[in-house]
């Protein structure tokens, strides 16, 4: 039977597996797999134990139930979570988390009756199911006659003595119908048979109904109706948890009562006492590894001199969790925390913080088992941090590991910082290397470009790449409108042409040959980047409007096409520069205007020009090249 039900035994366990810790970052869980395994062999051990128990424990017995129940004076409605609840209070089974099996075997009434009790219950997806079997057997009831000589009663030697057996089998179901209300019931099949002097057998069925109401965490109330449609037996009762004491009272409407108290003396030892009309009872339960042995002492006052010892052996289950770790691999790990890669600073020294550690890749095996029945195994690969054995910063060994803090001098321009770390790979006995690198640019500050200036990064980088220059006195004048000559110069500088090759002077009327921008204007005009006015002028000093500036830059970046929907509400639908603005916006050049009006007629500032140019792919390429190698694309002559 048990084997056939193994899937049912396993099911609740699988549902109740413990949640795993969530992995964070690179440490934590990498992968996991899970499997269940039966431990049926241990159950075989239990069955052997049970058989031994039946042989050795044939002492005397109680009216109903297990040694635990006897120790509690017979009170059972408030003492739930026991397989024996199958008979005493089916609704109480809803408290069980594991399959339970309980066996009691003994003799009653000075050895005249053999009593056997077996109960089993298991939680399932749809409720608790249970099975109970209880049987009493006795024999030797002599048939008699009257002695004709003395008229006294004598054994009728011509007829066989009578034996009788009575058993009940219960199929149990219990379920929580509300959070604090459980119901349960038994379908019972009675069987009675006479043998010997009478040969007769009879069967009947019965129904038990019970409910258990959890008034609050301390107080539960129960009702149990046995043989609902037959000679009914109704019990009301409950239990109250007062500190560690669980006190329960059953009142039988047949005017009997049972009062019991259970006290956990230690983790695996319960002490019990009970009172009923048949007298006081004492008991103890000893739990070990999923099994419980119960003993009770009860001298039934109705049966003076009968054996007062009661024993029950139960499998009560219990969940054990064990975790095993096994080192699989190591991963060294180094990263800079502060400053960020490609940071800009004006300071000559910089504080560096970094993390230098290794990750231990561990196989973590967790086994949850319902003792002696089943186990769920989960194997997870987790990575845990471990200090590195050696850490070098820019070639110097640090006596730090984990989170590192050092400071470093910076030269003007691009500075490269590196951390190297080593970890011993215990698994393969080899040394593992990890490294991290960042670059920091120390620049000479402009008076009018503060470190928090919105276009600091494009200005500094374009200046570093010598695409744009400041003014004397350490000024950049970022808010100054850029002139046509200045922007054209800026653009030509980014192009793949050496300044020395720019020989042809401009032939615009208003651009004299000796104008510092003459050759840039000529090259730009030649490349179609900038056009003059119909009257043959270039107006080099004219400050560009934003629309004009963006148009120029869009042409520079080869961004041309049809206009589309624009995010700027202040631009008229047929505005002449819409197609350039649209293209530039789509190419991500106008990030700095996000959420703002376009303001087409506002002067196009130097800072804006730097920002938009900085976002163009051509300049991004130059910038990346600089960060990686420290090389500026090309050097042009000093200009204003």
């Amino acid at each position: 039977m048990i084997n056939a039900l193994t899937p049912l035994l396993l099911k609740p366990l699988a549902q109740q597996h413990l949640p795993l810790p969530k992995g964070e970052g690179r440490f934590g869980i990498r992968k996991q797999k899970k499997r269940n395994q039966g431990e049926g062999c241990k159950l075989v051990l239990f069955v052997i134990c049970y058989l031994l128990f039946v042989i050795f424990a044939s002492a005397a017995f109680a009216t109903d139930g297990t040694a635990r129940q006897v120790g509690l004076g017979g009170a059972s409605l408030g003492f739930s979570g026991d397989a024996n609840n199958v008979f005493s209070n089916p609704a109480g089974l809803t408290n069980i988390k594991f399959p339970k099996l309980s066996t009691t075997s003994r003799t009653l009434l000075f050895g005249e009756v053999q009593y056997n009790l077996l109960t089993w219950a298991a939680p399932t997806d749809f409720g608790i199911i249970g099975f109970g079997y209880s049987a009493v057997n006795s024999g030797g009831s002599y048939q008699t006659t009257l002695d004709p000589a003395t008229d006294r009663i004598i054994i009728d030697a011509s007829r066989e003595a009578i034996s009788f057996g009575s058993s009940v089998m219960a199929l149990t179901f219990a379920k929580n119908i509300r959070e604090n209300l459980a119901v349960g019931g038994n379908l019972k099949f009675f069987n009675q048979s006479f043998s010997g002097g009478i040969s007769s057998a009879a069967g009947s069925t019965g129904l038990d109904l019970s409910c258990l109401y959890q008034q609050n965490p301390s107080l539960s109330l129960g009702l149990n109706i046995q043989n609902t449609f037959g000679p009914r037996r109704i019990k009301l009762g409950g239990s109250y948890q007062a500190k560690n004491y669980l006190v329960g009272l059953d009142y039988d409407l047949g005017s009997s009562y049972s009062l019991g108290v259970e006290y956990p003396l230690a983790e695996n030892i319960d002490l019990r006492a009970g009172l009923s009309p048949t007298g006081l009872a004492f008991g103890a339960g000893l739990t070990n590894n999923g099994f419980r042995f119960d003993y009770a002492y009860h001298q039934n006052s109705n049966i003076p001199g009968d054996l007062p010892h009661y024993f029950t052996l139960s499998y009560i289950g219990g969940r054990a969790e064990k975790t095993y770790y096994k080192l699989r691999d190591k991963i060294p790990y180094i990263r800079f925390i502060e400053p960020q890669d490609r940071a800009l600073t004006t300071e000559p020294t910089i504080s560096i913080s970094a993390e230098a550690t290794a990750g231990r890749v561990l196989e973590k095996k967790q086994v949850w088992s319902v003792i002696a029945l089943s186990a769920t195994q989960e194997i997870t690969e987790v990575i845990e941090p471990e200090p590195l054995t050696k850490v070098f910063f820019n070639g110097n060994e640090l006596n730090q590991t984990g989170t590192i803090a050092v400071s470093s001098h910076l030269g003007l321009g691009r500075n490269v910082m590196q951390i190297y770390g080593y970890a011993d790979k215990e698994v393969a006995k080899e040394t593992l290397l990890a490294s991290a690198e960042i670059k920091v640019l120390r620049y000479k500050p402009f008076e009018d470009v503060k470190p928090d200036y919105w276009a600091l990064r494009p200005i500094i980088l374009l200046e570093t790449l010598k695409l744009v220059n400041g003014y004397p006195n350490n000024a950049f004048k970022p808010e100054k409108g850029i002139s046509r000559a200045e922007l054209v110069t800026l653009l030509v500088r980014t192009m793949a042409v050496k300044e020395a090759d720019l020989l042809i002077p401009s032939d615009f009327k208003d651009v004299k040959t000796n104008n510092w921008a003459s050759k840039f204007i000529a090259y730009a005009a030649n490349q179609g980047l900038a056009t003059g006015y119909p009257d043959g002028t270039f107006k080099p000093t004219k400050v560009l409007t934003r629309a004009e500036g963006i148009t120029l830059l869009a042409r520079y970046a080869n961004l041309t096409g049809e206009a589309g929907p624009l995010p700027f509400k202040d631009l008229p639908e047929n505005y002449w520069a819409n197609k350039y603005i649209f293209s530039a916006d789509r190419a991500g050049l106008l990030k700095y205007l996000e959420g703002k009006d376009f303001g087409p007629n506002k002067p196009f500032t130097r800072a804006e020009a730097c920002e938009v140019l900085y976002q163009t792919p051509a300049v991004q390429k130059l910038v990346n090249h600089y960060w990686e190698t420290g090389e500026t694309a090309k050097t042009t002559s000093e200009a204003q």
Partner: protein
Amino acid sequence: MKKLFYIIIIACLLLPAAFAAPTIDIYCDGAPTLVGDPIANTPRISVTIVSSTALTLGRLSVYNISQNLTFVSSGTSYYATYEVSSPLPNGTQTITVEAFNVSGEATTKEVTPLYVQNNLATTVQGFPLNYPNPFDPGIQSTTIAYTLSKPANITLSIFDLSANLVAKKSYSQDAAGGRAGYNEVTWDGKNDGGSYVGNGLYIYLIIADGAVLQNGKGKLTVFKR
């Protein structure tokens, strides 16, 4: 010839009755006392004599007592009672009754051995038995019989096989059920709640002074046909 043969046969059968010696029955505390029975140490001894001829004298002897009996007669039956006032010693006793009729013929009844066991704990001698067994409550009662070694206040408890107490009866030591010797009590098959019990085996215990007497347990069967 054949008729004469029958007459002789019938006459032979009737003659002993017409001319029989008196029959004597001895009772202790109301129960017929037979050889081997226990008796109390202060028994009330009753004698019943059936005699077709008038009795002139009766004498009872027990231990060192020899007592003439005074009869009360009813037809051919003669009754007399004697109460032993000073306790009989423990051990084997004999009760002897002699009866003499008008023609001087003597009839003697001696019941021996009888046992006075006042020094020992009360026990049940032999096995308690009930008759009829099985019995059908509602139609029948059953009689439970047991022999006590000495008078005792008896509790008779009847249990079902789950050791639930079904019925509990008490008998005083000077009444039927608590006397020394053979006791008969009846049970109608009703539990203490007043309803008839169901089919099955029931175990009864004979309890005195808070202990089940030695041999004081029996099994009866209720079987409704």
